[in-house]
C-alpha cells in the first residue's frame, strides 16, 4: 500500500462522498461502506499499476474505439492479451479471413481427460468491432511490437473446468434464432476476452428493471456503451474498472468459478512478469488488455510487483490442433447468451462511432471484407506523456446519462425500410405502417424515459405495428429488424488460412470452376463422358458426402454403386456454408481419403460393430477408396466378427452386402479376393450351425431366418466349390423343428428347394390346412412364411401366387380381412425386392384381359392331370441324364468339336434308362430331327 500514499489524494473526494452515501443509506459503517470503498480501492490500485491495464468488454464498440485511440497515442512495444496462449501462432492468419471468425483449438482424441469428453473444442470468436481485434491488428501491423497471449492454454481450460458447469449459455432462451448460422460453433466451449456481466441474478434483474430495458445487452448499450462512446481515456478506464469491480464485489461467490478466475489472473500476471524479465521491456511501454472483471483483481500475484508464487501446471498429453473457423454474429450471441441482434447492433454502432469520432481503426493488411485502409500521413505521434492519474469518476457519475443521439432522419429511414422488408416477407404492410412505427417508437421512448428511441425501442414499435396474428413468411418482424440493423454477418476463413485437407479439397475441385469458398449452394454439373478428368472430382464429392453433414454435398443426379462407372452427375454443393465442418475434418488428417480410412477403420473395429456394419465399411472402402488392401483387411475382420456372433439379427444385411460385393468382384475382378472366399465358406458353416436354433428361437424373426437360408442357398455353389459340405445343410434342416407357423412354412420351402419335399406334397399340406377349420386362422402366418421364402427360393414364386390366390378364394372373411393390412405392410417394408417377383409371376398366371377371365382356369387346377403321369423322382434319376448322353454322343461331339476339345467317350456301365425311353417314344426325336433339317 506504500505506493498509493502519494496518489491517495486522487480519489479522496470520491471516497468521502461514498462514505457519506453509505452512512446515509445504511445508517452507519457496514458492508455497504466496505463494498463502496472497496470499489474505489480496486480502481485506485488498477490505475496506479505501472504496467498499463486496459480493461475491455467483449463486443463493445466503445472499448474498440478507446483501444484504437489509446494505441495511437501510446504506441506500446508489447501488448499482453487475455487469450489462450497456445492460440498465438494462428493470429497472423486472421488477415486471410473475413471477420467474424473464431480461433479454434481442437482435440479429437483425448489423453488425460475422460474419454467421453472428446472431441474437445475451444473457440474464441473475433469480431471487427472488438478491442482485441484492434490490439491484434496494431501488434501485427506495427514493426517491433510484440503480441503476447497470456491466458491459460486450451488444455488448461478443460483441466480447470468442472465439467458440466461451463456457463457458455449456448442456446439461451426462446429468442435464440433457430437458424443455421447460430450453430456455426458446434458444441465448442467458448472463451472470450472481457466477459463482463453481473454474476448475481438479482443484480442483473435490478439493473434491467430500473434501466427499463429488456435484456443485458440493451442495458449495456444504453448505460455504458453510449455514455462512454466519446469519453477520454482516463474516464473510460476508470469507469470500466468501476464496473468490473462492482460486479466482482457483488458476485455471490461460486467458489469454483472464483477459483478459476483467480487462477487465470495469477496465470496471466505470472506470464507477463516472466516475459518482462526475459525481454527486459520496460513495463511502461506495455499494455495489458483484459476484461474489466480481471482488472479489478485482488490476487496477491496482481501487478508487476506482485508475488511470484503461482506454479503453472503442465498440460496433459492431449494433442491439440489449431485452426480458424468461420463464425457469425448469431453464433456469438448464441454461444455467450447475448440477446439476438446485439452483436450486429454493436457492429453498426462501431461504424457510427468511427464516423463520428474520426478515430482511425487498425486493420490487418489484406483483411478480406474490409475497405482498403486510407492512405494516411504517418502520425508520428510521440508516445503521450503519462499524466498522473486523477479522479475522473466523480464527474462521470455525477453527469446525467448521455442519451443516444439517434436523429429523426435515421428513425424515418428505418421505419420506411422495415415496412419494405416486411412487405418483401409477405406482410401486408403499407406506408401507414411506416408512419405508425415512427410514431410508436417515439411514444415508446417517451414512456421509457428516453429522449429518443433506441434501436430496441424501434424493434418493439415495429413488432407492435406490423406483426399480426400470423407470420406469413420465414422471418418474423423482430428478425427482420435484426437483419435490417446490420443483420447477421458470417465470417469466412480465407484459402491460405485453411488446413491442408480443406486446401486439398478446394484444389481438387478446382476443375469444376465454381466459387466453392463462398456461402450458398452451387450447382455442379459433371459430364464425365465429355471430360474424363472430372471423374476425380466426382470421387472427392462422394467422399465429402460420406464425411460431411447433410447438405454440404448433395447429389441431385447420379449415384455411386458397386461396379458402376459414373457418366454424368449433378451436385448441389455448399462447402462455403459448411466451412467449419470441412476445417474440422482437417484436424483428422491431411486428405479426405485418409480421414475416411480412419473413420471406416474406427467403425469396423468398434466393440459394438456387427458383421453387417463391418461389411458396410468394406463396401464403402471399395466404393470410395477403391483400395484392395483396406478392403481385404476389413473383410478379414468381418469374418472374425461373424464367427463370434451368436445372434442372427444382422443376417438380412449381411446377405444383401455379401451378394453385392460378390457380384462386384465376379464382374470386375479376375479372381475373387481371398477374404470373400473365406467369408462365404465360414458364413456357410456358421449359418448352418445356427440354423436349428434360429428356427426355434423366438428372438430370431422369420425375415432373419429367410435371409440365413438365402445366404446358404445363394452362396451354395461357391461354398461347395471351396470345400463345404452340403450334408451339413441337410443335417441342419433335419434338426430344425420350428413351432412358429411362418418359420414352418419357411422350412417346407427350404426342403422343397433341396428336393426333400415335392410341390405336390407342399400343395397337399396347404390344401389340408385350408380344409381344416381348426388350423385356418393360422394359415395367413404360413403364407407370410412363404412370402419370406421367396428370398432363398425364388423358384417358388408360382407356388406362392397359388397359395395367396387360394387364401383369397377360400379363407373366411374374419380371417382374411384382418390379415390383409399385415400382408400389405409386410410386402412394403420387408419385401420391397420380393414384391416385383411376386407381381411378375402373378401377371404371368392371371389372365390379362377381363374377357379371358370367364374361361380362365387356374393353372394349378388344370395341372392336376399331368401331375399323375409325371414320373416320381427316383434315387437314380441323376445318372439317367448321363446315360442318355452316352447313348447319343453326336450332339456332345459336335459341341466339343466347336469348342476345340478333344475328348473320348467312356463306356456307360449299364443300359441307359433314358435311352430306352427315347427308343420307346421316338416321335419327339423324329420331330426334332425334321425341325433341325428344315432349318
Amino acid at each position: 500500500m506504500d505506493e498509493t500514499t502519494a496518489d491517495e489524494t486522487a480519489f479522496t473526494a470520491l471516497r468521502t462522498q461514498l462514505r457519506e452515501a453509505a452512512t446515509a443509506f445504511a445508517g452507519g459503517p457496514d458492508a455497504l461502506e466496505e463494498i463502496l470503498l472497496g470499489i474505489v480501492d480496486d480502481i485506485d490500485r488498477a490505475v496506479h499499476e505501472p504496467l498499463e491495464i486496459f480493461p475491455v468488454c467483449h463486443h463493445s464498440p466503445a472499448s474498440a474505439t478507446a483501444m484504437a485511440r489509446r494505441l495511437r497515442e501510446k504506441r506500446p512495444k508489447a501488448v499482453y492479451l487475455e487469450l489462450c496462449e497456445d492460440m498465438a501462432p494462428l493470429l497472423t492468419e486472421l488477415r486471410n479471413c473475413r471477420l467474424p471468425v473464431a480461433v479454434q483449438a481442437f482435440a479429437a482424441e483425448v489423453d488425460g481427460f475422460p474419454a467421453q469428453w472428446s472431441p474437445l473444442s475451444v473457440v474464441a470468436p473475433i469480431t471487427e468491432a472488438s478491442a482485441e481485434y484492434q490490439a491484434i491488428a496494431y501488434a501485427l501491423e506495427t514493426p517491433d511490437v510484440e503480441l503476447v497471449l497470456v491466458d491459460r492454454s486450451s488444455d488448461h481450460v478443460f483441466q480447470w473446468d468442472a465439467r458440466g458447469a461451463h456457463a457458455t449459455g449456448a442456446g439461451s432462451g426462446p429468442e435464440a434464432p433457430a437458424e443455421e448460422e447460430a450453430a456455426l460453433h458446434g458444441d465448442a466451449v467458448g472463451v472470450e476476452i472481457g466477459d463482463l456481466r453481473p454474476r448475481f441474478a438479482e443484480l442483473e434483474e435490478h439493473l434491467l428493471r430500473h434501466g427499463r430495458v429488456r435484456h443485458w445487452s440493451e442495458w449495456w448499450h444504453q448505460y455504458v456503451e453510449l455514455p462512454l462512446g466519446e469519453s477520454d481515456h482516463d474516464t473510460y478506464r476508470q469507469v470500466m474498472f468501476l464496473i468490473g469491480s462492482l460486479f466482482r464485489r457483488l458476485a455471490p461467490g461460486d467458489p469454483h468459478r472464483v477459483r478459476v478466475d483467480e487462477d487465470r489472473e495469477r496465470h496471466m500476471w505470472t506470464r507477463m512478469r516472466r516475459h518482462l524479465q526475459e525481454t527486459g521491456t520496460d513495463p511502461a511501454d506495455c499494455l495489458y488488455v483484459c476484461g474489466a472483471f480481471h482488472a479489478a483483481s485482488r490476487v496477491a500475484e496482481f501487478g508487476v510487483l506482485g508475488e511470484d508464487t503461482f506454479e503453472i501446471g503442465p498440460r496433459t498429453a492431449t494433442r491439440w490442433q489449431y485452426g480458424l473457423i468461420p463464425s457469425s454474429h448469431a453464433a456469438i450471441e448464441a454461444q455467450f447468451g447475448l440477446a439476438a441482434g446485439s452483436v450486429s447492433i454493436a457492429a453498426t454502432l462501431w461504424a457510427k462511432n468511427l464516423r463520428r469520432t474520426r478515430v482511425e481503426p487498425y486493420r490487418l493488411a489484406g483483411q478480406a471484407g474490409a475497405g482498403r485502409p486510407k492512405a494516411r500521413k504517418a502520425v508520428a505521434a510521440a508516445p503521450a506523456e503519462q499524466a498522473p492519474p486523477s479522479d475522473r469518476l466523480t464527474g462521470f457519475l455525477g453527469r446525467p446519462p448521455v442519451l443516444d443521439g439517434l436523429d429523426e432522419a435515421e428513425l424515418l429511414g428505418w421505419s420506411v425500410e422495415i415496412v419494405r422488408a416486411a412487405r418483401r416477407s409477405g406482410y401486408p404492410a403499407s406506408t401507414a405502417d411506416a408512419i405508425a412505427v415512427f410514431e410508436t417508437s417515439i411514444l415508446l421512448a417517451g414512456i421509457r424515459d428516453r429522449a429518443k428511441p433506441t434501436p430496441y425501442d424501434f424493434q418493439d414499435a415495429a413488432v407492435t405495428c406490423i406483426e399480426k396474428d400470423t407470420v406469413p413468411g420465414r422471418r418474423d418482424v423482430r428478425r427482420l429488424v435484426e437483419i435490417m440493423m446490420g443483420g447477421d454477418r458470417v465470417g469466412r476463413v480465407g484459402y491460405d488460412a485453411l488446413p491442408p485437407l480443406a486446401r486439398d479439397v478446394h484444389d481438387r475441385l478446382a476443375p469444376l470452376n465454381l466459387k466453392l469458398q463462398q456461402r450458398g449452394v452451387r450447382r455442379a454439373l459433371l459430364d464425365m463422358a465429355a471430360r474424363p478428368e472430372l471423374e476425380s472430382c466426382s470421387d472427392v464429392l462422394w467422399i465429402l458426402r460420406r464425411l460431411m453433414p447433410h447438405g454440404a454435398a448433395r447429389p441431385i443426379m447420379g449415384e455411386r454403386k458397386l461396379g458402376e462407372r459414373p457418366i454424368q452427375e449433378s451436385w448441389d454443393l455448399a462447402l462455403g456454408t459448411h466451412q467449419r465442418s470441412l476445417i474440422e475434418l482437417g484436424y483428422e488428417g491431411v486428405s479426405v481419403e485418409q480421414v475416411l480410412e480412419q473413420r471406416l477403420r474406427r467403425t469396423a473395429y468398434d466393440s459394438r460393430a456387427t458383421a453387417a456394419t463391418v461389411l458396410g465399411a468394406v463396401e464403402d472402402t471399395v466404393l470410395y477408396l477403391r483400395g484392395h488392401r483396406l478392403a481385404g483387411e476389413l473383410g478379414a475382420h468381418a469374418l472374425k466378427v461373424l464367427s463370434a456372433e451368436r445372434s442372427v439379427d444382422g443376417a438380412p444385411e449381411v446377405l444383401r452386402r455379401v451378394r453385392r460385393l460378390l457380384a462386384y468382384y465376379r464382374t470386375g475382378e479376375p479372381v475373387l479376393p481371398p477374404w470373400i472366399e473365406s467369408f462365404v465358406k465360414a458364413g456357410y458353416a456358421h449359418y448352418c450351425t445356427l440354423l436349428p436354433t434360429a428356427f426355434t428361437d423366438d428372438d430370431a424373426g422369420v425375415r432373419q431366418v429367410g435371409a440365413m437360408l438365402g445366404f446358404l442357398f445363394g452362396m451354395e455353389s461357391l461354398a461347395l466349390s471351396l470345400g463345404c459340405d452340403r450334408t451339413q445343410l441337410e443335417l441342419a434342416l433335419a434338426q430344425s423343428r420350428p413351432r412358429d407357423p411362418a418359420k414352418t412354412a419357411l422350412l417346407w420351402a427350404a426342403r422343397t428347394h433341396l428336393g426333400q419335399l415335392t410341390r405336390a406334397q407342399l400343395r397337399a399340406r396347404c390344401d389340408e390346412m385350408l380344409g381344416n377349420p381348426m388350423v385356418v386362422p393360422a394359415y395367413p402366418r404360413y403364407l407370410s412364411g412363404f412370402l419370406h421364402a421367396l428370398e432363398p427360393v425364388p423358384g417358388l414364386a408360382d407356388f406362392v401366387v397359388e397359395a395367396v390366390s387360394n387364401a383369397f378364394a377360400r379363407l373366411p372373411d374374419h380371417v382374411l380381412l384382418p390379415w390383409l393390412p399385415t400382408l400389405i405392410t409386410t410386402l412394403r417394408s420387408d419385401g420391397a425386392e420380393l414384391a416385383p417377383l411376386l407381381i411378375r409371376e402373378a401377371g404371368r398366371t392371371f389372365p390379362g384381359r377381363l374377357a379371358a377371365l370367364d374361361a380362365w382356369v387356374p393353372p394349378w387346377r388344370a395341372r392336376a392331370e399331368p401331375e399323375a403321369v409325371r414320373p416320381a423322382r427316383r434315387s437314380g434319376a441323376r445318372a439317367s441324364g448321363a446315360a442318355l448322353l452316352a447313348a447319343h454322343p453326336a450332339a456332345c461331339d459336335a459341341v466339343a468339336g466347336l469348342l476345340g476339345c478333344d475328348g473320348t467317350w467312356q463306356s456307360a456301365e449299364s443300359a441307359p434308362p433314358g435311352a430306352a425311353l427315347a427308343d420307346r417314344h421316338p416321335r419327339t426325336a423324329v420331330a426334332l430331327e425334321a425341325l433341325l433339317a428344315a432349318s
Partner: protein
Amino acid sequence: MSDLLRAPAELKYAEELDWLESVDDAPKPFSWRLSPKMVRLFILGSERSDGLDREIPQKWFGDRGLVERSIVTLASDRGLLLIGDPGTGKSWLAELLSAAICRNSTLVVQGTAGTTEDHIKYSWNVSMVIARGQSRESMIPSPIMTAMETGAIGRFEELTRATSDVQDALISILSEKYVSVPELDDEGIVFAKPGFSVIATANSRDRGVNDLSSALKRRFNFVRIPVVTNKRSEAEIVRFRTGELLRRHRIELDVPPTLLDVLLQSFADLRASSAAAGSDDERLESALSTAEQIGVLEDAILHGNFFGEHALTARTLASSLVGSLARREPEDLAILNKYLHGVVEPRSREEGGSWPEFLEGGRDAIATLS
C-alpha cells in the same frame, strides 16, 4: 368494500386512481386522465425508485414491454387487439387500461355469434320512435358510440366470435372516427372525441372461427399475451387473484404455500404432457391457463370453507382439479388417471409432503366421476 359482487377496476381502485391523478404532472395525451407512465405504474405497480409516497400494488403480471406497447398503441391512431390463449389475462389488462386511461371500463361489447351491427353502432327505442319520430333522443347508442362521444376507451371482447360483416363495422369507426346516422337529417354524424380508442380481445384458440379481414387487421396493433410459464410469476398471479376472491367471498382461510406449490407443479406437469401429446385425444381439453388454476384453487377453497373444516386440504384440491379439468368423459379422465398414476404416485413416494393426500383425493374424485 363495495356492495357490488364484482366492482369494475375504476371503482375498485378509485382511491388509488384519484391519488395517482393528483400527483401526475407529466403531459397526458388527449383527454387521458393519467399520463402513459402513470398508467404503466398503475398496472404494474410501483417501486421504491419511482419516488412515490405510497406503494401501488401490481395488478397485472406479465412482461413490462407488453404493457408499454399496449399503452403506446392506445395513444396512437390505432386500436389495440390483445390476442392470446384463454385465461391469460387479456380482459383484465383491457379493463385496467380503460380504467386508468378514462375511468370507465364498462363500455363493453361482447362479441358472440349473435352480435349485430346495431350492437356496435346504434339502435332505436321503438316506442319512442313511434311516439316522437327518429331523433337523437330515441336513438340508443352502443357502448362504442358512447365511447366515441365521450372520448373514452371502448372495449370489444372476443372480437373473433362476432361474424365478419359485424367486425367490419369497426373499420370505419377506427379509421374515419365517426359514425354516420343516415336516419337523422341534422346531427347525422357522430364524431369521436380525442381520447377515443378501442381495445379488442381475441382468443387465439378460436382463430379461424371468424377471421379478421385484412382491412381490420391493419387498423389494429396486435399484442400477443403469452401463457405464463414462469413458475414464480404464476405463483404471484394465483396468490393475488385468490386473495381478491377470498376478500370478495369474505372468507378467512389460509392457502398453505406447499399446496400452492402442488397446484403449480401439477399444472406444469399437465402442460408438459399436453405439449408432448400427439393428438387431441391425448390432450386435456382445457387450455391449462393461469385462470384455470385460479378457478381450481377457488373451487377448493370454497369447498373447504363451506363443507370442510375451514381449511384447504390437498384432498379437496385434488378433487377440484379433477372436477374442473375432466370435461370429456373418457378422454380427459383417462389422461388425469394416467397423470395420477404415472407422475403423482412416484412423486408421493419420493417426496411425501402433501402429495400422498393429493393422490388419494384425485383417485377418489376419478372413481366418483367414472
